[in-house]
């Protein structure tokens, strides 16, 4: 069989931009990779003083109940560690499917793009909005 898609079997990179962690999910994640990501994010939040987590899923073709649960758990554990999570860029077909599946993820904050997600976090950060030029 010919498998041409790149498979994310290793760690997903977690980038730090100021006080936000940025994670970009691509392609088809295996279950183990998603669970590893959950642990990596929690450790990074504690290690560096971040107040927000943005997970860009615009490159993800399907979110099933497993990945949906992992995203919700990342948001919940980040909140306990004083960081807010925004999931950005969900594809329309994924949103329609998740609702039909019965997984509307009510506690999960979303934004249409990474840029919009960063804007939400900047406005919401306790140190006040970072709108002014420095």
């Amino acid at each position, binding site marked *: *069989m010919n498998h041409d898609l790149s498979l994310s079997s290793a760690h997903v990179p977690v980038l730090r931009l100021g006080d936000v962690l940025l994670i970009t999910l691509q392609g088809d994640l*295996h279950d183990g990779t998603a669970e590893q990501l959950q642990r990596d994010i929690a450790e990074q939040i504690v290690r560096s003083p971040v107040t927000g987590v943005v997970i860009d899923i615009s490159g993800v073709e399907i*979110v099933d109940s497993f990945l949906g649960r992992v995203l919700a758990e990342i948001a919940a554990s980040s909140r306990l560690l004083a960081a807010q999570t925004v999931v950005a860029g969900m594809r329309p*077909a994924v949103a329609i499917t998740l609702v*039909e599946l019965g997984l509307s993820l009510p506690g999960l904050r979303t934004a249409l793009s990474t840029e919009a997600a960063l804007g939400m976090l900047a406005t919401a950060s306790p140190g006040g909005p970072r709108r002014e030029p420095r």
Partner: protein
Amino acid sequence: MSGTVAGVEARMPIRSDLDLVWVRQHVRRAAAALGFGLVDQTKLVTAASELARNTLVYGGGGEMAAEHVRDGRAQGLRLTFSDRGPGIADPERALSDGYTSGGGLGLGLGGARRLVHDFSLDSTPGVGTTVTVTSWAVRSPRQREEPR
């Protein structure tokens, strides 16, 4: 269309979470080859992912068979997930949202049923479980009455 569309029919093992990835990729390609639209592809791939995970987690592994089916001019994809696991004692309960015996969200079976056109569950305790789902590529424009 006559004959089978290339790359649709397959039998695939489900023995690890890596196999779930291959199952999703195969179902995606097969549905696209049969003319499924993007939303219908996404629904069927998601249903396949839920069912394959059930086969792995609750059935102890098994396999998926993919077949090309036709009804008149409509093209369909039928997926059969089978395992020789412990079986499901109460299928109606297993299909209800929120029921789980394995620590998940309990959306797998009931959720998968909502994402496909036809769904059947055949399970015998102690023997195994077979779940068969079929979805159809809806062609647009809708079928018109044709002159004979």
